[in-house]
């Protein structure tokens, strides 16, 4: 994927984090709004699935950008990118399972 596409998705993920992260914060910190949000566990799980995906993409891409700026070498850049991608996918798979257990779906 082109670097400009990756960075555009980085900003899309940022906007998604702002929306879903706000819902996550309200659900766990505001007694009134939190109860209303957690009234439908399926929707909240969907929110958390989107939040987790966007957060992991944004976080791991941020780390990748810093790393490849430290090591501006084409070969290293390629390996760093693949390693980060694989670690990110594994973290998402494990994270979804943990979320489903924590929210009482499994």
């Amino acid at each position, binding site marked *: 994927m082109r670097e400009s596409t990756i960075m555009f998705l980085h900003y899309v993920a940022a906007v998604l984090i702002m929306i879903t992260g706000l819902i996550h914060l309200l659900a766990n910190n505001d007694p009134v709004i939190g109860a209303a949000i957690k009234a439908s566990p399926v929707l909240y799980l969907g929110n958390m699935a989107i939040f987790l995906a966007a957060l992991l993409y944004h976080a791991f891409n941020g780390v990748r950008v810093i790393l490849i700026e430290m090591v*501006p070498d084409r070969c290293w850049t390629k390996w760093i990118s693949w390693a980060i991608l694989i670690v990110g996918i594994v973290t998402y798979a494990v994270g979804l399972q943990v979320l489903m257990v924590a929210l009482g779906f499994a």
Partner: protein
Amino acid sequence: MEAESEFKEYYAKNMRGISGWFNRAYTIERWLYAAHRITGILIVLFVLAHFYSTGWHPGLWWDALLGIIVTFHTANGIRLILAELGFAVGKPLLIKKPSQRPVSIEGVQRYVVVFALVLFVVLAAIWAYYALIVQPMMG
């Protein structure tokens, strides 16, 4: 001459590492950039701990500090997205004298910087209210 071209190439490649994030010659945007990176790395560390033992939080006053870190990253991130998409960027300023301080951007971008900083303070205050007053009441 040889040394100078090597020096320029070294800077062009941005090979200064982490020390390159902090350069006194730059403008406030550069400081915001350094702070954005540092807060970003701190948030990643928090998120990893938050995942590893599910729902972990540092606790009362540290939660307020976490709020400062996260809300700064959010507010400055909004400014960065606007700049990236070409909104409210302003014109580049012509440097007329060598003694003139380097100002990369003039006009609207100044107001966006102020807006981001004000938004940061407001969001951090709201977060601190929830961390220090609402959370202890919830138990």
